[in-house]
């Protein structure tokens, strides 16, 4: 773990120093900047690191709990000032509408390299020899079949409101699987947990960074690389008749803010724009919170103290 941390530290330091930034005004430093806390731990880590950076710059910070899907109206109204971990794979239409109207400002990518894919808990490899190669799924689909999907296998897909990327893959690759929408993240986790406990077969659409990746030893199925052509040209890829016959395109994780942020707290705006966090930094902190049961505040404080080089330059560049 320390090795990962060190690697991430140097990587972050490089990105931070390489960024050109000039000092800005602090602005209304006596009024608290409100940052949204959504429903998952990784986002809490991301937000608390940003919040501590703002505090180091001399700001007051308030953390406001907000539903991922419902926060955008609040940000447009200025009730919340920034949200720091939006996944392009899971963002409502409302976001695009508000952004186009100029009621939301998209800041920049967070630098968190996310990966989505078709996944399975490690023990499933015994039930379907040949995994992680995707071709193996063609022959063992029946092992994944359930009452609702017979004779096709069952793929647990994202909740319906996140889109249906898993179902699109199954159609694109012409795999005999029927996608079942999960309804919620809790349902996805319960599936992983039950499958691990029962040693039963499971194919699921999942993503990382996520604490469950290591907790349930989740592996990704190897699919043809997700190039742009795959999503537009049917001829591309193993299935000459369909698009989507490849892996997920890389999802973008980015930050957004209330448009007034720039004028009211110019230095904070600059800090949040330049703020970067890597998977290697976030994942161990997530584990410390979700698996070891430490509080987010303690874990983040510890990381901030041990990795000053990773965030201090960003704060200094904006304030000095």
């Amino acid at each position, binding site marked *: 773990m320390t090795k990962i941390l060190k690697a991430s530290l140097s990587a972050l330091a490089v990105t931070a120093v390489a960024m050109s930034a000039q000092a800005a005004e602090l602005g209304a430093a006596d009024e608290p900047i409100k940052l949204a806390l959504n429903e998952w731990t990784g986002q809490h880590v991301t937000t608390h690191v940003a919040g501590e950076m703002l505090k180091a710059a001399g700001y007051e910070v308030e953390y406001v709990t907000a539903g991922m*899907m419902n926060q955008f109206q609040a940000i447009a109204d200025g*009730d919340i000032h920034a949200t720091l971990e939006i996944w392009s794979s899971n963002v409502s239409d*409302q976001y695009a509408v508000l952004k186009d109207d100029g009621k939301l400002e998209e800041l920049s990518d967070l630098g968190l390299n996310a990966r989505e894919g078709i996944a399975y808990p490690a023990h499933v490899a015994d039930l379907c020899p040949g995994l992680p190669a995707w071709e193996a799924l063609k022959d063992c689909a029946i092992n994944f079949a359930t009452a609702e999907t*017979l004779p096709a296998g069952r793929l647990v897909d994202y909740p319906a409101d996140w889109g249906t990327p898993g179902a699109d893959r199954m159609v694109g690759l012409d795999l005999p699987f029927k996608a079942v929408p999960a309804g919620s993240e809790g349902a996805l986790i319960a599936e992983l*947990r039950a499958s691990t406990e*029962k040693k039963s077969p499971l194919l699921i659409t999942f993503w990382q960074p996520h604490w469950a990746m290591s907790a349930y030893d989740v592996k990704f199925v190897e699919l043809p690389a997700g190039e742009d052509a795959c999503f537009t040209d049917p001829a591309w890829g193993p299935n000459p008749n369909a698009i989507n016959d490849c892996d997920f395109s890389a999802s973008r994780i980015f930050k957004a803010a209330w448009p007034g942020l720039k004028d009211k707290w110019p230095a904070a705006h600059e800090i949040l724009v330049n703020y970067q966090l890597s998977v290697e930094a976030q994942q161990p902190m997530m584990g410390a919170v979700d698996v070891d049961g430490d509080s987010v505040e303690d874990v983040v404080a510890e990381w901030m103290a041990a990795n000053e080089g990773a965030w201090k330059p960003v704060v200094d560049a904006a304030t000095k």
Partner: protein
Amino acid sequence: MSAVETASQDQARRLQITRGSVAALLVLVIAAICRFWGEELTWLVSWPDALTVPMTDWVGAGVGWFLAVFKPIARVFSYLLEFPMTWVGGLLGGAPWPLILGSVTALGWLIGGARMAALGFFGFGFVVISGYWLEGMNTLALVAVSVPLAALLGAGIGIFAFEYPKLKSSVNVVLDVMQTMPTFAYLTPLLVLFGFGPVVGLIASAIFAAPPMARNVLLGLERVEPEIREAAVMSGGTRRQQLFLVELPAASQQIMVGFNQCLMAALSMVIIAAVIGGFEDIGWEVLLTMRKALFGPAFLAGSVIVVFAVVIDRMSAALAEPRPAQDKRVALGIFAIGALVAVWAVIAGWNPAGIAAMDGVADKVDHGVGQFTANHGATLDTIKNTSMFYGLLPLRIGLSDAVLPFTWGFAWTAQHSFVFYAVFAAIAALVALRGHLPQAGLVLIGAYVLETGIAQLPWAFVIFGVGAVGWVAGGRKLAIQVSVLLGLILVSGLWERALLSLYLSGASVAACALVGGVLGFWSAMSPRAWMVIRPVCDTLQTIPLFVFLIPVLMFFQIGEFSAFLAICMYAVVPMIRYTRHGLISTPEEMIEAATASGAGKWQTMFEVRAPYAAPTILLGLNQTILYAFAMLVIAALIGTTGLGQSIFLALGQADVGLGVTAGVAMAILALVADRLVQGFAEERKQALGL
């Protein structure tokens, strides 16, 4: 009973039979047409797309306009509401817990002596050791502000309906919609109107909690003795004086009952509103643990709500009853002890978040669920598959599609259909020969539904069938009402989803009626059984609904069966309660008469108690239906299809049009079911002379 009366009753009965038979016959004809000519007359089976109107777009535009106009007013309102929110939140959150524990115990003493004091002490003591003290106080603060709001709103509506009796029925419809429209459907518009934060949750819970208050205020005012009213008129007061000085105080007992229900409703809704966030309350905590599928912690956090509900329910129920005055000095003493400990606590620097002494227990519970899943995986799968293959699937897509070689071992063919209908026709003939003509029709209609599947029923059959039931239950007016309401869903293009919802809630209600009826019957027969069943009912009814979803998901995974179970767990409670209540509240004279004429315990039960309890049991069924629809939306979190999912989708995408339309469709389904069952209950009541 005189001969004339008997004769007229006989006539009435004959009339009912004919009406029922006519209705059954007409529906049967429609079913036969759909069954045999459905392939040619496709417009009878599935509603033509050309006739579907873009209802969701219209509603979206309409609501959007409304929001734009009223947004400034609403924002002022939410600005004003933030003051009491901050005050109460600061008071409850800032006070050290020994002080609040002492106050609640003292309050309990004042209300109901040592028993209530103990309830308050141990209840809030549990919250302290659960480690959710701060979250719990935030939840209480929300309730403390939303309940007065809901109570005022409800009282206003109730008085209005009393003063203008002509508008009473319209007011009733509004109250029904407030109660049956799923909260998730209107969270997005509320968010736009009132802005982000706890105010939205507050308003949502006030909307949901006001109707019981309104109904009870109205009922209380209507029940004021005419003599009291006349005395007020004679003493020459103005109308307002009569109302506020005489009639409302005279109705206070009933109003307190309403207040109690209002409190409970607000408490259950505050949790649901946590989905928006903005406030670190118990609901948010439950959502966080639910995302990690941790049953233990979710259950622990949920139990805090159960404790609040029980304490608040018992104390406010005690307020509604006449009670002896308690010694105030004892209350003062208890409060003083609490205050002293609080001062000492502050000096000693105690943890304001309470003592997290229950984490070990929560982990153990969680571990237990995991162990159970691991050890009984095969059994659980068998249960699930059997119920799917032989129960839910045939109900949804019909025997003709559900019977396949890998489910039942053979494929359904035309011959099977023939034999199937022949058997049912024989049963129907037997029933008809014994003189039960409508029941015979029902058997055949049931066979048709079972072969076709609820989700694939032709629209013409559904609307006509429901209309016919309405005609039997409450005459022509009801028949037209329910048909028009269902027609609205049909033209809005949400019909398929509505049928899926109907199937899932229908299956759950049927299972609940059976299981709940048996359990209620058992509880009525044996007080010891009731001692076990009652706390389970209390818990199931007040714990945040999300909590159920985790173990169900762990055992049976994503899918309809899990949703079915989750709905049943919640909706079975009223069936048990009302069945028991109906069976034990038979007037003593009737039982004495039965005993005197030599009837045994069981005979009394079936021939005296059961018929007398029928209207109450029907009311229980009515509640079970409403509960099932309410839970349907939550069950969408386990991945069901149908209206519930549409409402969630709309919430996620902030699609106001779809959310409101799907919510209204859900409310319509619930209203139709409610009106039909109430129609039958009314008819039974009249038949019993109640």
